[in-house]
C-alpha cells in the first residue's frame, strides 16, 4: 500500500486501538507473571495465527487449508538464513532481521505462486487445491531429502555461534516472545490499514458477492492475490519466530501439520471473521477452553474410569460447536448485535 493517505492511517489506528490495548494487557501479564509466561505466549501465537489468517480468510471468505505451509516456509527460510550467516562467520543479532526478511520473502513468493494458480478457483475448489500445496510440499521435502529431509533443520548450534550461549538463551525465551508481540502489533495495524483502504473494501465486496464485485469494476484476482500474499508473509514471519528462533528446530512432520490451519479457522470463526478483535477473542477462548477441558474436566472423567488419549478434545469440540451455533458471526459479531450504545460499539472493531 504505497503512499498511504493520512486519513486511512488515522482510521486504521482507530480500528486497531482496542486490539492493540488487548495485546498490551497480555504483554503486561506476560512480564508480571513469569509462571504463566508460556501460557500467554501460546495465546499470543494463536492470536497472531488467527490475525494473519484472517487477513485472507476473514476478508475474502476463501478458506486456505494449506495456510500452515506459509508458516513452514518462513521457519525454513529463517533457519537457512541463520545457518548461512553462521557458516559465513557472521556474528551478532543481524541474523534476526535478515532471517525475518528472508522468511517474509520466501512466504510471499510461495503465496504469489500458489495464489496466481489456485485463486482462479472458487469456493471449495480453492480449499481443496490448497490442501494439496501443503501436503505436496511436505512430501517433497521429505521424499527428495531436501532441507534435512524428514529430520528437518536443527539450528541451535548455529544460533549459539551467532550470538553466543547467553545470547541464544535470551533469543529463544524473552526476545522471541517480545518479537512475537511486535509481530502481533504489526499484523493488527496491517489489518487496520487494509480494512480502511480500497483493498479492504474490495476484499469485503468479493466476500459478500464476488460476481457483483467483478461486474462492478473490481479486479477480483488482483485483490485476492494481494491479500493472500500479505497474509502469507505475516504467517511466514510467525513460523520463523515461533519454530526457528524460539524452538531452534524445524521438523517437517510438525511445521506442515494441517492441525494449525484448522485451529486458525476455528479461532477466526469463533472470534469473528474479518474483524480485528475477533482473532484475539478467538485465541483466548480456544486456548482457555482447551486448558480448562484438559486440566479440569478431563481428570474428572478419568477418575470415573473413562480414559482415552485426546479425551479433552471430545469435551472441547461440543463447547466450540455450541458457541458457533449461538454466535454464528463470532464473539465480535454477537457483541455488535447486543451492544446498542454507539460509543461502546465504536470500540468493537
Amino acid at each position: 500500500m504505497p503512499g498511504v493517505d493520512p486519513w486511512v492511517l488515522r482510521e486504521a489506528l482507530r480500528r486497531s486501538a482496542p486490539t492493540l490495548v488487548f495485546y498490551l494487557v497480555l504483554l503486561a501479564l506476560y512480564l508480571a507473571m513469569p509462571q504463566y509466561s508460556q501460557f500467554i505466549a501460546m495465546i499470543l501465537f494463536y492470536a497472531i495465527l488467527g490475525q494473519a489468517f484472517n487477513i485472507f480468510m476473514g476478508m475474502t471468505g476463501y478458506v486456505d487449508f494449506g495456510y500452515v505451509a506459509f508458516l513452514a516456509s518462513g521457519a525454513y527460510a529463517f533457519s537457512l538464513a541463520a545457518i548461512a550467516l553462521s557458516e559465513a562467520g557472521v556474528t551478532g543479532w543481524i541474523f534476526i532481521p535478515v532471517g525475518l526478511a528472508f522468511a517474509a520473502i520466501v512466504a510471499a513468493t510461495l503465496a504469489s505462486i500458489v495464489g496466481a494458480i489456485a485463486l482462479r478457483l472458487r469456493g471449495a475448489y480453492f480449499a481443496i487445491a490448497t490442501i494439496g500445496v501443503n501436503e505436496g510440499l511436505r512430501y517433497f521435502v521429505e521424499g527428495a531429502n531436501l532441507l534435512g529431509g524428514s529430520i528437518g533443520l536443527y539450528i541451535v548450534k548455529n544460533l549459539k555461534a551467532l550470538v553466543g550461549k547467553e545470547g541464544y538463551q535470551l533469543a529463544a525465551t524473552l526476545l522471541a516472545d517480545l518479537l512475537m508481540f511486535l509481530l502481533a502489533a504489526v499484523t493488527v495495524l496491517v489489518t487496520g490499514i487494509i480494512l480502511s483502504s480500497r483493498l479492504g473494501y474490495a476484499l469485503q465486496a468479493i466476500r459478500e458477492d464476488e460476481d457483483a464485485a467483478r461486474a462492478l469494476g473490481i479486479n477480483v484476482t488482483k485483490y485476492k492475490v494481494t491479500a493472500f500474499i500479505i497474509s502469507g508473509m505475516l504467517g511466514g514471519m510467525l513460523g520463523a519466530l515461533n519454530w526457528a528462533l524460539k524452538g531452534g528446530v524445524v521438523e517437517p512432520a510438525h511445521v506442515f501439520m494441517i492441525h494449525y490451519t484448522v485451529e486458525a479457522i476455528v479461532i477466526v470463526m469463533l472470534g469473528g471473521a474479518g474483524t480485528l478483535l475477533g482473532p484475539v477473542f478467538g485465541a483466548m477462548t480456544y486456548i482457555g477452553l482447551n486448558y480448562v477441558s484438559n486440566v479440569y474436566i478431563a481428570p474428572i472423567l478419568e477418575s470415573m474410569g473413562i480414559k482415552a488419549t485426546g479425551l479433552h478434545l471430545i469435551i472441547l469440540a461440543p463447547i466450540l460447536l455450541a458457541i458457533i451455533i449461538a454466535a454464528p458471526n463470532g464473539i465480535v459479531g454477537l457483541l455488535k448485535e447486543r451492544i446498542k450504545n454507539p460509543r461502546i460499539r465504536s470500540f468493537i472493531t
Partner: protein
Amino acid sequence: MAELLRVEGVVKRFGGITALDGVSLSIEQGELMAIIGPNGSGKTTLFNVINGVLKPDAGKIVFEGRDITGLPPYKRVALGIARTFQIPKPWPNLTVRENVAIGALFGSMQGRIGAREALEIADEILEIVGLSGKAEVEAGKLTVPEKKVLELARAIAMRPKLLMLDEVVAGMSPKDADRIVDVVKKIRDEYNISVVSLVEHVMRVVTKFAERVVVMHQGRVIREGPPEEVLRDPLVQRVYLGGAL
C-alpha cells in the same frame, strides 16, 4: 450528438441456443434509451456482453470509438460503464454507505480517489436518491425496493458515462417507480450520462422515461424508434401478446 456506444453484429450462443443473433444498436451521449422485449428475448445477455461479463461469439462493442470487445469488466467500468442487476446484488453485510462507497472507489474514478472521498461521495448520492436515513444499515436488511434504489445509487457513484439499468423498476409501486425515474433523469441532466434501461413489462415507465425504444425478440432487434410509435406498432404488440410474426 456524439455516439457513445455501438454494438455491431453481436452473436452469443449458449450451447445450441442463440441468445443474441446479430444485434446492432448504438447509444448517443446523454440519451435515455429503453430496451424492451419479452422474457428470453436476450436483453440481459446483451447487457452482460456490453459490460464484459460474457464474451460474444461474434461482433464487437465500441465505446467512445474504441473497440472494447476484449476488455475485462473492471477495465470497462474504469472507462465509464456501470450497471445494476435485475435481482439486486448488494453486499449484504456491508452498510448502505459502504456499498455505495465501493461503487465510487472502483468506478470511473478508480485509483484517483481514496476511501475517505468515496465515503463522502456515497453520502451525497444517498441524499440524492433519498436513502440517507439508511446509510448505516446493513444492505442485507433493506426491503426489495430499497435494495433497487441502493443498486442505482451504487451505479451512480461509479460516475459512469453509460448507466445500464436492468429492470430497475420491476415490482415497484407506481409511486416508487416514478421516483426512480425522476432520480435517473435528474442524474442524466446533471452529469450528461447516457442511460440504457431494460424493461420487460412496465410500459408506463417506458413512455415516461425513454427518448428512444429498442425492441428485442428472440435475440434480434426488431424495431426501434420513439416510444409512442414503437409501442403502437402491430409487430411489437404481437411479440408481447403472442401470435404469428
